[in-house]
């Protein structure tokens, strides 16, 4: 039988009509076509007439609408509810913390609270848009995202307005923390560029490393040490995941350390600038002052917290980098432990989404997991005195509109990856078998 008959085609079409998620139509069509062709061949061999064979084959399959409805319920994009619940949890912890800070007059600007609410709403809108858009459509634009981020970053560094020593891009009265969100944007771009990258060919491998190194060098030269750390760690993990040779990973790590030392040694003002990021400038009583303060706060927190008794001036940057000790002090160690458990679950969840998706989706999940893990874990460890104090804040929880919106974009993309996986787009018919 060369062609499937018209009746069969009509049947398959009415099955597909019931399936809302059109990306799976093609594979279902081909699978059912193959089924009917095989069955009708056998029925013909048994001596049935062509019409009878087709009739019997269709009858055995049953009501097209019923089959279609069943398939529709299976091939429905479903986001990962655990990921969304944990995100909501973090966002709400942030909102509640800012609210209590506002109540306790601990906010440098009381308007931060309302601003956060607006950014949360904006973030959700962006996440929903990203969820319904197909994440695979981002891939062809990876190079554009890379160059675009590079361009805007250079513009911001050259002409941006400074706030707390950090340059912001101001458009129409809105300050955007380009430096802060650039690691995430670069990682999205590199996930696309590195997907299927040929690391075996020397020239190609070198080009790949240059792509990765440029943002690192740029962030370092502009003394954005925080963004540099986040970018570098995430980038190395991505490099490892995209099957680059360990030698390259060591090379780039070594090169970065060398550039970093050169940059530090280049002048005393650099040391100063770097120490600014280490918060030593706010250190009236010498090195270790902030760690001592942190210890005091954490030691007096207790299991269930001290409520709204946090005193102003004990720690700087409560709403951003030191929101975690504030949470522990106010709501107790129990809350701190719950939050850490939430963070661990969140990272595991993201990696879990990436486990069974195609390579680009997988690299994206690894990128997001490493960016979030770096920020969450560094902030938690530095609070506990296990890592140097740098200006890394808690994603979703700390104040910072641009970062919140960018992080929600990542959640939207992750949900899109997860939705496609659940809808079964992964078993897409290959064009050439």
């Amino acid at each position, binding site marked *: 039988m060369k062609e499937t008959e018209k009746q069969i085609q009509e049947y398959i079409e009415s099955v597909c009509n019931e399936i809302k998620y059109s990306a799976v139509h093609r*594979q*279902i069509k*081909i*699978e*059912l*076509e*193959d*089924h009917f*062709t*095989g*069955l009708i061949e056998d029925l013909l061999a048994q001596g049935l007439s062509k019409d009878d064979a087709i009739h019997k084959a269709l009858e*055995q*399959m*049953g*009501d097209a609408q*019923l*089959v279609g409805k*069943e*398939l529709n319920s*299976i*091939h429905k994009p479903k986001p990962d509810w655990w990921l969304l619940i944990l995100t909501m949890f973090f966002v709400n912890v942030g909102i509640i913390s800012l609210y209590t800070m506002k109540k306790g007059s601990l906010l440098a600007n009381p308007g931060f609270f309302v601003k956060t609410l607006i950014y949360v709403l904006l973030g959700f809108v962006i996440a929903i848009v990203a969820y319904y858009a197909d994440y695979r459509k981002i891939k062809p634009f990876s190079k554009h995202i890379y160059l675009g981020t590079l361009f805007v970053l250079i513009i911001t560094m050259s002409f941006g307005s400074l706030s707390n020593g950090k340059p912001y891009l101001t458009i129409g009265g809105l300050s955007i923390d380009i430096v802060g969100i650039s690691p995430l944007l670069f990682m999205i771009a590199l996930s696309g560029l590195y997907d299927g990258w040929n690391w075996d060919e020397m020239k190609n491998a070198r080009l790949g490393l240059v792509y990765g190194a440029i943002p690192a060098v740029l962030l370092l030269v502009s003394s954005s040490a925080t963004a540099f750390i986040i970018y570098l760690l995430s980038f190395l993990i991505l490099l490892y995941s995209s099957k680059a040779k360990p030698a390259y990973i060591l090379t780039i790590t070594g090169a970065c350390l060398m550039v970093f030392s050169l940059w530090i040694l280049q002048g005393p003002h650099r040391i100063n600038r770097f120490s600014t990021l280490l918060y030593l400038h706010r250190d009236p009583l010498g090195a270790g002052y902030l760690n001592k303060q942190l210890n005091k706060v954490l030691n007096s927190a207790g299991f269930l917290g001290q409520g709204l008794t946090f005193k102003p001036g004990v720690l700087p940057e409560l709403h951003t980098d030191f929101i975690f000790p504030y949470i522990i002090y106010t709501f107790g160690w129990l809350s701190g432990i719950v939050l850490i458990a939430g963070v661990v679950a969140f990272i595991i969840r993201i990696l879990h989404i990436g486990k*069974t998706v195609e390579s680009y989706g997988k690299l994206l999940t690894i990128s997001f997991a490493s960016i979030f893990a770096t920020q969450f874990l560094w902030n938690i460890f530095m609070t506990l005195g296990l890592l140097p104090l740098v200006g890394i804040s808690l994603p979703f929880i700390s104040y910072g509109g641009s970062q919140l919106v960018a992080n929600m974009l990542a959640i939207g993309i992750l949900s899109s990856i997860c939705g496609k996986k*659940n809808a*079964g787009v992964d*078993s897409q*018919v*290959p064009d050439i*078998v």
Partner: protein
Amino acid sequence: MFDKELLKGSTEILILSLLNREPMYGYQIIKEAENKSEGVFHFKEGTLYPLLHSLEADGFLKSYWLEYEGRKRKYYRITATGKKHMEKKLEEWKIFSSAVNRIVLEGCM
């Protein structure tokens, strides 16, 4: 009449244990089940494909495509989690069927 859940559960075991022997495509599963049961089992085809798809969505099966006489054919193979699931279901089935046998066959002994 079979209870719908029971029927679905037993069809699941059938599919998983058939695929545990070798990867197959949909129509092949139907033929195999019919042959092995000497014509007793005849899958309602309209339920087979949704079931295969949902077993794949659960991660118990993994599909792949091969070419046969110029057509693309979708094969299913069982995964490691699928095997575990099958063993669990098989255990449940044994308990259930032996219980049924004890009651039903009691009078005949």
